[in-house]
């Protein structure tokens, strides 16, 4: 059979295996394990969409927390019932029509993604006028502006009080389902002609323009798609944590995503997935350094904040000594796996 058919069948088989594993965890796993798996899935979605802009297009975009914020708040506002909104907005009542809108979960996720995309479209004009460092600072600025707005517009977002008591709609099926859809769509984009154009813009923008590629159109496309999936992931995150407030969406979140894609390999979707999984799991596992450690003969007192120091050091070590990260720009491919298992053709 041809390679593409073989790959297609293998992909379907892998997805089925994934869902069987999820079913097993859902039925027999502990709450702690399920929470970590949900975290991993949400971070995979975020990382894969962030990698589309930073890794494939080569522009340093420091404002994904803006899209996540917008997606989270939109989705939360749409799933809360009117009664809950009245209870939560104690300082300033929620503005109409948001106070009466109520939609099912899936619609709220899509709405979150759409709102984030609209915002991305609005800011794309100033953002893509510049490149390089300035683009980084401008996107950082927009991220901060959205956070400040979320804090200040009490009649829309309930300000610093945040939104509480969201229904935990996010379960393993939703989070991993969205993650799988994101990976499929982003990979299709990357492997198609749009993706090739984006990579050419990353390598040499002037040569790309000489080849007739319009940088703005392609960067905008990547930006909007990334914003959409970030918004959806924001909605998932909101309904996973069930409480959101502006302090959740600071530059810190962007920094975590940056660590994920750099360590995984800037420019590789597989790298983003691996990075997200390592980060979500490692974040939990490293909690151990923040608690006192009793090795019998040696008592190490727990140091709060050590986790972030370790993450920062890892980021700097990777960027200085192993710039390519874990995967570099390579992707996982069935060819590679089958060759490793000596089941495929060699050479």
């Amino acid at each position: 059979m041809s390679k593409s058919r073989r790959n297609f069948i293998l992909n379907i088989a892998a997805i089925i295996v994934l869902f069987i594993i999820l079913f097993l965890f859902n039925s027999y796993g502990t709450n702690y394990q399920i929470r970590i798996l949900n975290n991993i899935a949400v971070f995979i979605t975020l990382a894969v969409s962030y990698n589309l802009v930073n890794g494939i297009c080569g522009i340093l975009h420091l404002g994904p927390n803006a899209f996540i914020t917008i997606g989270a708040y939109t989705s939360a506002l749409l799933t809360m019932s009117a009664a809950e909104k009245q209870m939560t907005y104690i300082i300033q009542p929620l503005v109409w029509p948001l106070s009466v809108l109520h939609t099912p979960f899936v619609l709220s996720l899509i709405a979150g993604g759409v709102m984030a995309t609209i915002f991305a479209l609005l800011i794309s004009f100033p953002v893509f006028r510049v490149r390089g460092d300035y683009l980084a600072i401008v996107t950082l600025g927009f991220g901060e502006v959205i956070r400040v707005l979320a804090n200040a517009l009490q009649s829309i977002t309930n300000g610093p009080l945040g939104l509480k008591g969201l229904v935990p709609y996010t379960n393993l099926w939703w989070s991993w389902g969205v993650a799988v859809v994101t990976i499929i769509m982003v990979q299709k984009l990357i492997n198609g002609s749009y993706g090739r154009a984006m990579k050419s813009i990353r390598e040499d923008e002037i040569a790309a323009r000489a080849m007739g590629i319009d940088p703005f159109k392609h960067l905008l496309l990547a930006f909007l798609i990334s914003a959409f999936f970030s918004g959806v992931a924001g909605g998932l995150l909101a309904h996973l944590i069930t409480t959101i407030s502006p302090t959740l969406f600071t530059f810190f979140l962007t920094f975590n995503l940056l660590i994920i894609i750099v360590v995984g390999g800037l420019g590789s979707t597989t790298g983003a997935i691996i990075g997200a999984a390592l980060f979500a799991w490692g974040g939990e596992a490293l909690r151990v350094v923040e608690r006192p450690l009793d090795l019998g003969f040696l008592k190490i007192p727990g140091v709060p904040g050590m986790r972030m120091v370790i993450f920062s050091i890892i980021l700097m070590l990777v960027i200085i000594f192993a710039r390519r990260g874990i995967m570099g720009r390579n992707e996982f491919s069935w060819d590679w796996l089958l060759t490793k298992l000596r089941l495929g053709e060699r050479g």
Partner: protein
Amino acid sequence: MSGTILLQQLINGISLGSLYGLVAIGYTMVYGILRLINFAHGDLLMFAAYTAIYLVGIFTLPWYISFPLAMLITGSMGMLLDRCAYRPLRNAPRISLLISAIGASFLLENLAIVFIGGIPKGFPRPQTFDQVISIMGVRVQVLTLYTPVITVMLLLGLLYIIYRTKVGKAMRAASKDFEATRLMGINLDRIIAITFFLGSFLAAAGGIMWAMKYPQVNPFMGVFPGLKAFIAAVLGGIGNIVGAVLGGFLLGLGEILIVAFVPELSQYKDAFAFVILILVLLFRPTGIMGEPIIDKT
């Protein structure tokens, strides 16, 4: 509003602006030579404030010794930052440098949390700076008046170094053409280290004066002033030192006056600086004192 309140806000604005300007100088000098936005620069502010606290508290040195000493130590910290985080990446693509800068910034902040704790500490304000005097009916702290004066003095000192010494000439050459400077036999690494030292020294001065003005010191105190100082540098024309100070004054004055005239916008004070940045990048990316870049394409 009355004249006295306006005068008070003007004085506040100039004072805040000079602090932004001091920190902006460091950004602009590093960018001029390395084309790198040193995200960790704002955290050097925090480093200086904590160093001053410890010098005064643990070594019980009087302020006129411990403050300059803290500035020297912060200058060395800046050189260490360059040596560890930026020098290994001299030939790497720009995105790596930016990521390294972000990582260094977070590392400094979290190291401060680990070693010092996140609880804000009080900054020891010396008696000399504590007095309040009255000018034309406005009561101001002497610190608010000393700040612009000290800033201008430091700026003049820096300009002397840059325009009248050989080291300064080398720095100017490096900012014009990196590779050619090497060809002239100048040890570029040393020049860059000196640039970082000077920039960090000035940022330390800004940090100490900031901590005297807002005596609550916490590990994240440098983040916003650092970002705003960068915006001030862009506003004034990045790479231009006088422009950085000018941009600092404009930004500081603008921030204070906006809140003074439209008090409802005080929550958006921080966003104001970013709006300025976006406007500058849209309409005059090279800033006020920069030369317009000819688009070669």
